[in-house]
């Protein structure tokens, strides 16, 4: 009998499932992919090489770039702030003292201290797609990285969607958007573990025995010749129908979201990020989602996005970074070590970044305000040349003093790590025009 119902997917925020269903009602469903994808996936599943994947961790609100990976020790105190730099295991690279565990893993990561091109809006759009929200709006907008990958590669395992968005609904909605499908249409949108697509993955109101009886009867009467369909759709529907019935009896996806199936020691190593603080209208610091992301990728997901914390530190900036940063240090270091010990780190890229940076000058509430002239990013794994700090800001942390890196260069690097040549791969939009994924090239220092 079926044992996959119920509390498989965990919502560490304590928001009720009903609430999710309502808010997530528009989200799209399970593994919406095509017959060609299915065949590709089945061909790929016989490929012993692990698939390339991305975990895109959005630090909603805009983390203070000068309190993360580059401490401005030479700036005056009203700018410098409370943090001191600590040494890392890569000589010459220092990062903020709250990232004690990450300091010991610097050789497996790269920090970019000079990210530019931030539009300045409070949303995940650029981190998820590389584009500003108004680009190609008239035809539905630009697809996010996960949607493009869904379109280009399809699923690894046909019963696990290639693109999964774990972000839970936030009061400020745009911080929770896991990446849009844009002009690719909802079939390539993120699978959300709270939408009807998920509900359809567990049996609704009938027993497994009854499903099995229905299935037998269907086989007897569903005899229309399949090869008369010149589009091949009938055969595709059969293939997906078979997969769907398999999913209902055993779901890798549902299992992947169920952390009770994980080694408790590992769960503990990631931590739970509680108590949630400074959350307001943003996402909680839900450490477990990073572990879920790893489990989903093992199950076959290619891109997992999530929203971690609320970094919009207009007040109490330093307390917030101590809280969020310390928790992030725990789960992110756990994720890197975990992927490394499983031999997955070369294939999985982790990106950790926000929509913009924060003002150099500390305001009267010990906070920092919006600053889109420079931002920062933390990248790990993915077969990159890690152990680097790229770029720098000027003495006051106002703008890049060397090697400005456009947000699209970061996204191009992520595509590159996923095996996409952004100079040649284009997706045809509904007007028939080929659209390239980004306009910038990958970061040469990293690839």
């Amino acid at each position, binding site marked *: 009998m079926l044992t996959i119902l119920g509390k498989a997917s965990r919502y560490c925020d304590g928001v009720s499932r009903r609430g999710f269903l309502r808010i997530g009602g528009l989200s799209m469903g399970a593994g919406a992919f095509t017959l060609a994808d299915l065949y590709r996936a089945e061909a790929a599943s016989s490929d012993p090489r692990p698939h390339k994947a991305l975990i895109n961790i959005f630090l909603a609100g805009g983390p203070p770039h000068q309190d993360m990976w580059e401490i401005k020790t030479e700036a005056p105190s009203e700018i410098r702030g409370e943090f001191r730099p600590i040494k890392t295991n890569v000589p010459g690279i220092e990062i903020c003292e709250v990232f004690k565990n990450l300091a010991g893993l610097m050789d497996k990561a790269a920090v970019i201290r000079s990210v530019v091109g931030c539009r300045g809006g409070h949303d995940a759009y650029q981190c998820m797609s590389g584009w500003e929200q108004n680009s190609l709006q008239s035809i539905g907008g630009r697809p996010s990285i996960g949607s493009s990958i869904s379109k280009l590669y399809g699923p690894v395992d046909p019963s696990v969607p290639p693109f999964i968005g774990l972000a839970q609904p936030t009061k400020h909605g745009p911080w929770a958007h896991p990446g849009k499908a844009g002009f690719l249409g909802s079939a390539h949108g993120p699978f959300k573990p709270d939408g*009807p697509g998920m509900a359809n993955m567990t049996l609704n109101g009938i027993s497994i025995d*009854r499903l099995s009886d229905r299935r037998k009867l269907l086989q007897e009467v569903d005899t229309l010749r399949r090869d008369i369909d010149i589009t091949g759709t009938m055969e595709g529907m059969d293939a*997906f129908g078979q997969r769907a019935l398999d999913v209902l009896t055993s779901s890798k996806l549902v299992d992947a979201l169920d952390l009770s199936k994980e080694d408790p020691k590992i769960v503990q190593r990631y931590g739970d990020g509680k108590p949630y603080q400074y959350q307001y209208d943003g996402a909680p610091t839900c450490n477990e989602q990073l572990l879920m992301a790893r489990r989903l990728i093992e199950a076959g997901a290619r891109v997992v996005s999530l929203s971690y914390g609320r970094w919009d530190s207009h007040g109490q900036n330093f307390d917030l970074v101590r809280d969020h940063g310390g928790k992030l240090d725990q789960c992110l270091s756990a994720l890197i070590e975990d992927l490394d010990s499983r031999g997955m780190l070369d294939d999985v890229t982790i990106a950790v970044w926000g929509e913009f940076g924060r003002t150099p000058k500390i305001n009267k509430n010990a906070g920092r305000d919006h600053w889109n002239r420079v931002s920062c990013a933390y990248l790990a794994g993915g077969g990159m040349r890690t152990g680097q700090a790229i770029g720098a800001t000027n003495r006051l942390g106002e703008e890049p003093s060397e090697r400005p890196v456009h947000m699209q260069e970061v996204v191009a690097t992520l595509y590159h790590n996923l095996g996409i040549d952004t100079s040649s791969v284009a997706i045809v939009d509904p007007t028939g025009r080929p659209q390239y994924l980004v306009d910038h090239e990958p970061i040469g220092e990293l690839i």
Partner: protein
Amino acid sequence: MSRCCMLSTSSSGRGRLTIAGRRGAGHRSQRRHRGMIAHPFKIALLVLLLCGNASASELVSLRIENQAGDEAKSFAATTLVGRDARLQLLVTGELSDGSQLDWTHQVNYAAEPPGIADINDSGLVTPLANGSVTITAKSENGKAAQATLQVTGFDQNAAVSFPSQVAPIFTKLGCNGGGCHGKASGQNGFKLSLLGFEPQADYERLIKESRSRRMSLAAPDQSLLLLKATNVSPHGGGQRLDRDSHEYRLIRRWISQGMPYGSGDEPQVVSIDVFPDQRRLGKTDSQQLAVVATYSDDSTEDVTQATVYESNDTEMADVTPSGLVKLQNMVGDVAVMARYQGHVTAFRADIPLGATDNWTEDQWPEPRNVIDQFVYQKLKSLGIPPAPECDDATYLRRVTLDIAGRLPTLAEVQQFQQDTRENKRETLVDRLLDSDDYAHYFARKWSTILRNRRTSGSLQLPNLAFHRWIRESIRENKPYDLFVRELMTASGSMISNPPVAWFKQVPDTNQRVEDAAQLFLGQRIQCARCHHHPYEKWSQKNYAQLSAFFTLVSTKTNGDPNEPAFFSRVGGAAARHPKTNQSLPPAGLDSAELSVPSTDDPRVHLADWMTDPENPFFARSLANRYWKHFMGRGIVEPEDDMRVTNPPSNPELLDAMAQSFVESGYDIKSLVRMICRSRVYSSAADANEDNLGDRRSYSRFYPKRLQAEVLLDAVNQVTLSTTPFAGMPAGTRAIELPDTGFSSYFLDVFGEPNSATACECERSQEANLAQSLHLLNSDEMQKKLAADGGRAAKLAADGRSDEDKVRELYLIALSRQPQPAELTAAINYLAAKENKREAYEDVVWTLVNSKEFMFNH
């Protein structure tokens, strides 16, 4: 002979002999062959039989097509001018059965006298010295042909021209594509114009930018351009050029000459021609193409190697960069596009099956109208047999779904079965066309591509008004030219004149001109906004002139900013060319410039041009769109991309339908009648061995998937349930929805479009896992199946026998009686279950999850 030759002479019969043999008895023997091949004795017998009666099909003569002064039969590319010239020979073999086949790659070439020209195995000639040279091509069985070529200008070190010789190399090698140096921002600091349409700008960038480091006059081989292209200096695009290639030598020589741009007044390419332009070929045959450019000074040049080729169906044919077309193992027709310097042309190949070659005229169905006439003409020519006519039950379901967007009711099914009138199918079509459902269903279709889309969460009055206007136009069968005219020239407010909503939904001039061209002319001109597209004939000038019709459209608000009124300003209609900034008067596509009086609304002139009976796009586009709706595949596919490089699969059919549509006064219902009454439309979907592989000749009916709204309504009809839509009265069906903004997971997952574009392609008809899960397992489906007032509950409570009830259920869901095996399966299933209501739920579930239910076949 056929395969037997291949089998019997396989050790000695290298290369062409086998192919020559295969050509002989055609493809029928190959098919007959298929089931037998396993048995050696049978093969031997077949060899005997076939060899015995096959007298024909050897190569009887060869012909080199390159002959001076014989343009009617072949082509006149016989002169190589200058040391960079190249020339493709084409050799055709004639077989004893009269068929012609490309022999270019299967002959030995010899040149006399030696030293004038060099020829490789593919028939590519390069010059060595000035003079006249006689080429002899000889086949293995000793047939020979000759041609005389002239080499001139070899000794003159003529200046290489950048625009006509160097820039095309960048196009051929893909350097100036949209993903590389051709994109707006260039690539790694080096930008070229997209697809080489601005050679002057490319020249400036190459020569002057980056402190001229891209070129080295002193050491041409050290030029960054060549180092990068050969990947000697690491190049993101990899190696594009071989040091030992024609292109490398040409660029190198151009550099060593001091990189001249050219005189600036060199002749321009005015057209290109591909040879042959059409051929009838066999499966897996190949055909070498040659392309000749004609210049503004009437000179011609072989540009075969510099041309870019693309097959319109790679499952049917591939093409190499040097123009060798290789057919796959399929019958039908295929086109290969060739483009050079902004000009395009296409080669078309027919690959006949030949299965009806021995048919007598009375074996073919009697044509009922022009549709039958031209479809059967094509089928005859390809030798593909048409499927028999479908039965009444299938026809009723098919035409009801296609015209009314719903399943036939039980009463309709029973009535149609009992109807014995000869013309009952015609009467049915008329009845459906007069029904509300026809208006609803086609209003849904048009409303979606006319972008009737709400701007915020709730349904708005203008959306309702626009939808109603579309629906009523369809219901009253407003002539299509009038429908388009009212849309294109709409003025006033959305409430007083609903088609104005289109101007609100499609907010700027560019989108309006692009939508209008795609919707009503079948032309996608959006590319031409920024550049001349290589697959299209439209230039930026064409685009600007078409958009000039819309430039006077303005809005004013009478107090309510949400309810603007649209009007046409008084003034001179004109648009600026984006590159030259020249002000251009309005002009239709392929049409003369108009001078529109400043007091006229230029859109009226646009509507006049569009709806003119002579307009080559307007009626064809609608005919093709409706053909696709009913027949599942456009004569041009996709239906709204009718560019020159995407030719119709049956041009005569398209022309005849368009002509008939014009003559009817743009009467859409009469077009629908013509399609639905044709013998072609009523063909069975089932295939036999001969027409199974046919994918675009309409030898049978191609099954179509029910679209999202129709499927949802059909599920509701069968389960006796409804789906609530916010703001709409209870019982509203999905095809009646005024816009696409209603929240429905079912519709989303089955591919309902968002009305974001004018493209029918926004509607996705692909299968996916989420659909299967939803139909097989969702809470929504289970509720419909198990509802108290639902079909299963009713049937369970019904006192009739299970057999009677199953028969009725089949009539309701599939419009037909169950087959004995289906009936038995269902009855046994019901008998084995104690809970009758659940058992009926299961049977209904089974029917709605069957492919037959989900398809219109």
